[in-house]
């Protein structure tokens, strides 16, 4: 199950598992983002290509307006997944 919350200073906080079953719900939430935004992964244990695609489409849309997503708190397994997908070079990851 994935929980998407709004944290301090408007950051998006992800909690749980971002798998294929959560894509529609997450896409609806990420569609509301219209400017540069921090996405906090500290409590996210899992992500698969469905979750990555939501992040990627959001990043594409924001870049067209000169904005982007800034990801933080990725665990080592998720960080490795980003590297396999080449997304460690696409996203700003703190």
């Amino acid at each position: 199950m994935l929980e998407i919350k709004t944290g301090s200073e408007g950051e998006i906080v992800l909690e749980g598992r971002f798998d294929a079953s959560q894509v529609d719900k997450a896409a609806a939430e990420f569609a509301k983002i219209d400017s540069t935004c921090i996405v906090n992964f500290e409590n996210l244990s899992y992500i698969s290509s469905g979750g990555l695609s939501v992040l990627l489409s959001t990043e594409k849309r924001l870049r067209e307006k000169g904005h982007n997503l800034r990801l933080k708190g990725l665990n080592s397994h998720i960080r490795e997944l980003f590297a396999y997908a080449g997304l460690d070079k696409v996203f700003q990851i703190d």
Partner: protein
Amino acid sequence: MERAFKRDVVQVRDLFAFISDFAREHGLAEGAAFALNVAIEELFVNMVRHNPESGGDITVDLSTDGRAVTARITDCDAEPFDPTSVGPFDPATPIEKRQPGGLGIHLARSLTDDMTHEYDGTKSTIVLTKILRTEDA
């Protein structure tokens, strides 16, 4: 251990529970369990999306000899589709040229050590092998 899953993306939750039970029972390291979760989810979802009209279940069979885990994911009512024949995904593709799709099979390949495909006329089976390493912890 083997289990059948309905052809629905929401079944990934039960799939994770099944893989987690197997990982716990066999003492798999966290990294190996994570890799198997992602690889099996990607192939399961691929089967659901590419063969939505089938009424048959998708089965997942997990086994280990202590050195590697073998996962057999079988679409019980499928046209032949060999994911191992899909061309390589280029992770260096810039964001503006990235298209939806293709990433899941790339991740399944990247996170495991071998992927083969079997087809017997109705059943399409993908066999994944994940070698267990101490660094997977």
